[in-house]
C-alpha cells in the first residue's frame, strides 16, 4: 500500500489509461477522484470506489469548482494526474481550426488549468518535508511523429516543455512534476487510430495491422494501461521523492531504434 493516506485526482479518469491508474491508486490505498467529461464505464473498481467529478478540463470554472470540492472534502491533494487527452487523426491540411483549438484546449490548456488550480492543494500536501506529485501525459509522439497526427504531436511537445517548466518553478515547494510519454498502449484511442474512423479501417485487416505494429516493437507487443499505471504509481509514491522534471518514455523500446529498413 504505497499511497496510504494520499489523495489523488486523475483527469481522463474514465478513459483507457486513466481508469487503470484510478484502479491502481485505489489498490494502493489512495483516495481517488476520477475526473472526466464522459460518464461511461463504472468507477466501482477492484480496489474500491473512485469519486467521480464531471469535468471539462478546458473550462476554468469547472476546474476551479473541482479543486474546491477536493479541498472541502480532503483538505489537500498529494497527486494530480493529467491523463485527459484527445487526438485528431489528420495532417494539418485536413485539420480544421476548431479541431486544432480543441486539441490544445484539452491537452495543453487542460493540463495548465488543472495544474494551476491544484497548486495550492499540492502545496498543502508537500508541507513538512513531504513531496506532492504532478504527473502529466506527454507522448512518444512529442519526440517523433506518427503520420496524420499533427495537432496531437504538437500538443504533446507542448506538454513536455510545460512539464519541465513547472518542475523548475515548483520544485522548491516540494512539488515534483514529471510526464509519462507512452508509446502504443492498448486503449480505445489506439483502436480508433487503427481503424481510422471506427468503421473497420477501410477494408484493412486490423488483426494483421496490429501484429505488424507489435513486430516493430523490440518487446514485440504494445503496452497495456496497467503498464502505464505501474510507472504512474511509482512516480506518485514517496519512493520517487527525487524524481522530477523528467519525460518518462514507456514504449516497449519502440523509439530506441532507428528506422528499420526491411532488407
Amino acid at each position, binding site marked *: 500500500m504505497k499511497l496510504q493516506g494520499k489523495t489523488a485526482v486523475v483527469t481522463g479518469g474514465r478513459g483507457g489509461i486513466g481508469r487503470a491508474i484510478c484502479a491502481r491508486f485505489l489498490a494502493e490505498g489512495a483516495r481517488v477522484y476520477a475526473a472526466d467529461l464522459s460518464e461511461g464505464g463504472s468507477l466501482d473498481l477492484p480496489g474500491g470506489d473512485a469519486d467521480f467529478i464531471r469535468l471539462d478540463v478546458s473550462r476554468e470554472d469547472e476546474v476551479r469548482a473541482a479543486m474546491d470540492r477536493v479541498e472541502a472534502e480532503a483538505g489537500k491533494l498529494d497527486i494530480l494526474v493529467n491523463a485527459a487527452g484527445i487526438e485528431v487523426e489528420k495532417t494539418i491540411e485536413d485539420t480544421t481550426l476548431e479541431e486544432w483549438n480543441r486539441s490544445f484546449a484539452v491537452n495543453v490548456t487542460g493540463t495548465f488549468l488543472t495544474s494551476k488550480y491544484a497548486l495550492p492543494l499540492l502545496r498543502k500536501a508537500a508541507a513538512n518535508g513531504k513531496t506532492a506529485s504532478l504527473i502529466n501525459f506527454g507522448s*512518444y*509522439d512529442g519526440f*517523433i*511523429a*506518427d*503520420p*496524420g497526427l499533427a495537432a496531437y504531436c504538437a500538443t504533446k511537445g507542448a506538454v513536455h516543455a510545460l512539464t519541465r517548466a513547472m518542475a523548475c518553478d515548483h520544485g522548491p515547494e516540494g512539488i515534483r512534476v514529471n510526464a509519462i510519454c507512452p508509446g502504443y498502449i492498448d486503449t480505445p484511442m489506439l483502436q480508433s487510430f487503427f481503424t481510422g474512423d471506427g468503421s473497420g479501417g477501410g477494408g484493412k485487416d486490423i488483426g494483421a*495491422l496490429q501484429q*505488424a*505494429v507489435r513486430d*516493430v516493437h523490440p518487446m514485440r507487443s504494445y503496452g497495456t494501461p496497467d503498464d502505464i499505471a505501474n510507472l504512474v504509481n511509482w512516480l506518485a509514491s514517496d519512493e520517487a521523492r527525487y524524481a522530477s522534471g523528467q519525460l518518462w518514455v514507456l514504449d516497449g523500446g*519502440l*523509439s*530506441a*531504434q*532507428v*528506422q*528499420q*529498413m*526491411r*532488407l
Partner: protein
Amino acid sequence: MSEKVAIVTGAGRGIGRAIALRLMADGYTVLGCGRNVRGPELPDAAHWVQASVAEPMGASRILAAAQALGRVTLLVNNAGVQVEKSTLDSTDEDWDLVIGANCRGVFNMCRAVLPDMERSGGVIVNIGSISATAADPSMALYNASKAFVHGLTRSIAVDHGPNVRCNAIAPGWIMTEMADDAFALAKNPQAARADALARHPVGRMGTPEDIANMVSWLASDQAAYVSGASFTVDGGMTAASPLNPGLF
C-alpha cells in the same frame, strides 16, 4: 605554405572523399588519410598520407604531414568502421577494430591538433551517427562508439574554446558503396529500396555531398557561434516514428 590546411580522415571514398572535394573547392589545402594507399578517386591536388588513426603514431604522422603543408585550421574526423554484430557475438578483435578506429582514432586526432588550434584557432568536425542516440540492430559496438563521438565533441567544445570550435554531424542513410551492398543483399532489393525511401520525408536517400555541405558550413565563419552541437542530416528520417510507413 597554405593558410588553410584541412585534415580529412578516411578520405579515400564515400563521405570522406566528398568532404575532401568540397573543402578543396572551398579553398582548403586538403590532406587526406586512410589505412590504405591512395585510391584513384581523389584528384591530384589532394595530399595523402597512409596511416591509421587508431594508432598514436599514426595520428602524429598525419599531423606532421599536414603541418608540412601549412597551418592546420580544420580537422574532419570521418574515418570509421562498423562490425555488424550484437554484444554477445562481438569478439575482442571486433572491440579493438571498432573502438580503435571510431573512438581512439577520433580522440588521437583531436588530441594531436588541439595544441596548435588552441593557440591560433581551428575547427573540428566529427562524423557521428544517428545510431548514437537510437540503436541499429546488431551494431552494438558501432552504436556505442558513435555515442562516444558525440560525447567527446561536447567535451572538446567545453574544454578547448574559445579558439577551438568542435561539432558533430549525425548522418542518416547515405548512399555509399556500403549501402548499395546492403540493398543488393536484400531478399527483394527493389522493395527494400522503396521501403527505405518511404521513411525519408524528403523523398530520397542521402548523398555524400549532403554531408560535405554541412561540414563546409560548420567549418565556415557562418558557424562562428556554433560549438558543442550535433547536427542530424538524415532527410527527416529520425523525426518519424519507426513504424512502417506502409501500415497506415
